[in-house]
């Protein structure tokens, strides 16, 4: 939610009603004063001026009043001039009677000329004022659309638009709502002009917006709507809400003749003599709000469309993932199961004659295949628990050398192929012992699996620093090097993706689920560390892949 400062660079006053009222009142006084001043000048210079030409001085005064203050004031000035001329200068003086018919004619010609002048010039004035307002309106709209189109991010367009409305109309708030889950309206952008707590008003806006949405009727545009009254009476508004308060404006938003949401603008609140007062928006402001509402409707419709596209995309990806999982399961689970089934049922056959070596081999096969099944299932479960957030790291101070020792102790079968280089003086790091064991186990198993049985796997650890999210932190880096075929160029990051198996291994005899590395990445990321893989080639005889991960100390 965005709060706007009281004054704003874009504040352009479209609400000139109070000011023009004050101007009108002082206009009458100024007009009267101007006529009085003119009369005084005439009085002083009366010897020099022909009394019949006094209209030459009064007419500019009327013209001035018409341009400066308006039609009414100009007519007032004309009438006052008429009487002043008659009273002070036309014989008999100091009476309103006129004896000379020529004077009478001059007087009435003057009056007619003055009225026509007033009329014409005040109309020009009005047109100029209207043109100014329109220009203002256009420039405000221009500013608004400028500010909106500057926002590339769709999520920020609506807040930008709302804050434009709030600053331009000096409204207390502007909220754009759209239909959310279960028909409730959910705000997608809300901008308030102050920072106080809006919980009550928020729920009121919600209720009224729902009424506006379901009836497709606006609130706050002239006619006292039955909708508002009905909403106030029947809908559940918070008890604290003052129902006499100006509800502001609610506009249903249409895009392509479809109702997509509601835009609400709170009333302008001024702190007047009697506490807080709300003032009505001018016609210009209403027009502006309606225009910007159209913008909002288009943005909302666009957002809804892109949401739907994203949803479809997510579904499609989930589908691909499901296919990958199924194909992995069908191979990696079914082949050990098939082996177990064959061996176990063979051993059960009553008429079979087993020699003891074959029998042992069959039994060992069952055991080994069961271990493989357990491995696959464990990796899958661990990954789903990690990714579902059900297995948060239980971090405590650990010694990487100790973790390495535990892992190698458990990899009994091929432990002698692993050459370790782990210094004694590594700093302790705060990690989840079991999870880091999992990472090391998976990396070592991969290295052993994908390289020749007579080649070594080198494991080393060292203190290092790493740039994690823009901050350089110190920690421990672990590398696992093999002398295998290496990673297919271009697949260095893909191999960490779920169910991904390297091109050259996809149909090979080496079993793999495409889960292990994903699991490693999930664990390392949960520890705010980094994991990466690359090929190395020291010389044509010494090449392969190296997997490294970095864990920060704390």
């Amino acid at each position: 939610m965005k709060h706007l400062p009281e004054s704003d660079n874009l504040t352009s006053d479209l609400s000139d009603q109070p000011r023009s009222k004050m101007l009108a009142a002082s206009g009458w006084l100024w007009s009267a004063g101007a006529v009085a001043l003119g009369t005084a000048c005439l009085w002083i210079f009366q010897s020099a001026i022909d009394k019949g030409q006094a209209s030459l001085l009064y007419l500019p005064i009327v013209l001035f009043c018409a341009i400066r203050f308006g039609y009414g004031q100009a007519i007032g000035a004309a009438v006052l001039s008429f009487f002043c001329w008659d009273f002070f200068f036309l014989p008999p003086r100091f009476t309103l009677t006129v004896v000379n018919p020529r004077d009478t004619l001059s007087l009435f010609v003057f009056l007619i000329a003055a009225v026509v002048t007033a009329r014409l010039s005040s109309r020009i004035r009005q047109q100029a004022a209207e043109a100014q307002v329109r220009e203002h309106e256009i420039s405000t709209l221009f500013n608004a659309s400028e500010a909106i189109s500057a926002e590339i991010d769709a999520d920020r367009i609506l807040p930008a638009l709302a804050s434009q409305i709030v600053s331009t109309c000096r409204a207390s708030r502007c909220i754009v709502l759209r239909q959310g889950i279960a028909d409730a309206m959910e705000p997608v952008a809300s901008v308030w002009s102050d920072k106080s707590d809006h919980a009550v008003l928020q729920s009121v806006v919600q209720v009224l917006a729902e009424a506006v949405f379901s009836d497709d009727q606006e609130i706050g545009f002239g006619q006292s709507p039955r909708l508002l009254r009905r909403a106030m009476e029947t809908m559940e508004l918070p008890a604290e809400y003052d129902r006499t308060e100006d509800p502001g404006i609610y506009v249903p938003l249409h895009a392509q003749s479809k109702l997509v949401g509601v835009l609400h603008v709170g009333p302008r609140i001024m702190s007047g003599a009697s506490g807080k007062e709300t003032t009505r928006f001018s016609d210009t402001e209403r027009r502006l709000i309606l225009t910007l509402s159209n913008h909002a409707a288009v943005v909302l419709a666009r957002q809804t469309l892109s949401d739907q596209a994203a949803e479809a995309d997510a579904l499609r990806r989930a589908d691909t993932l499901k296919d990958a999982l199924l194909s992995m399961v069908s191979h990696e689970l079914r082949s050990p199961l098939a082996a177990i089934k064959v061996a176990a049922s063979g051993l059960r056959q009553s008429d079979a004659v087993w020699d003891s070596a074959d029998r042992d081999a069959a039994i060992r096969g069952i055991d080994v295949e069961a271990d493989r099944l357990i491995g696959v299932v464990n990796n899958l479960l661990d990954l789903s628990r990690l990714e579902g957030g059900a297995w948060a790291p239980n971090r405590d101070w650990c010694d990487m050398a100790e973790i390495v020792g535990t892992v190698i102790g458990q990899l009994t079968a091929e432990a002698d192929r692993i050459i370790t280089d782990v210094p004694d003086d590594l700093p302790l790091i705060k990690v989840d012992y079991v999870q880091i064991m999992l990472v090391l186990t998976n990396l070592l198993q991969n290295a052993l699996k994908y390289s020749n049985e007579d080649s070594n796997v080198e494991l080393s650890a060292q203190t290092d620093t790493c740039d994690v999210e823009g901050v350089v932190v110190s920690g421990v880096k672990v590398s696992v090097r093999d002398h295998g075929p290496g990673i297919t160029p271009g697949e260095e990051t893909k191999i960490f993706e779920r169910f991904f198996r390297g091109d050259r291994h996809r149909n090979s005899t080496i079993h793999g689920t495409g889960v292990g590395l994903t699991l490693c990445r999930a664990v390392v990321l949960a520890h705010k560390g980094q994991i990466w893989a690359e090929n190395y080639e020291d010389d044509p005889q010494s090449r392969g892949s190296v997997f490294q991960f970095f864990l920060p100390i704390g």
Partner: protein
Amino acid sequence: MSTPQKNILVVDDEPEILRAVRGGLAAQGYKVDTAVNGEEALLKASTSAPDLVVLDVMLPGGMDGLEVCRRLREWTQVPVIMLSARNQERQKVAALDIGADDYLTKPFGMDELTARVRAALRRTPSKPEGSPEPIFQIDDLVIDYAGHIVTKGGEELKLTPIEYELLRFLTQNADRVVTHRHLLASVWGPENVEETQYLRVHIGHLRRKIEAQPAVPRYIVTEPGVGYRFKTGS
């Protein structure tokens, strides 16, 4: 096997596991009784007085394995081996804190179970509380508790007081899992039960002094996420 025949109570709600474990243990010469829930387990434990209980943590009904273990400990010191799910280190620590002697993660191999059963049974009669053996010996490592002397291959090892205390506590609880908290409380005092880093450092030093291959320890093995175990068997 040994005479008289040892009596083991196995508690699990999965009939396949019960059947397999019963068969495996019987083949090793143990007499096996089974129970499928907490109530039945407590009843059988009190009537048949087993020499060891193998207890699954997850049991149906209102009473889980931890609760059964807690109730057993109210009146008997019979060794209890808990069967726990994978990656449930907190659960394992909780079980050990309640008084379980050991745990095994499902799925386990029969060889692992029999090894744990043997170790637990071996511990019980020879080590009554309060009167530890005066001398501990494994391979060429000898600890003389009375004289505070540790020798390896006949040569005296220079251990710091903390290292000696760690070794003494671990060997007097040989083949048992000792939790981090338990070890910290008894060596450093109850106010230091959270200071796992002390343990990491001093266990590392101790391993360098007593292990042939400190990087892959044979005696002081890490129980990941739970604690340490001084292993006497292979």
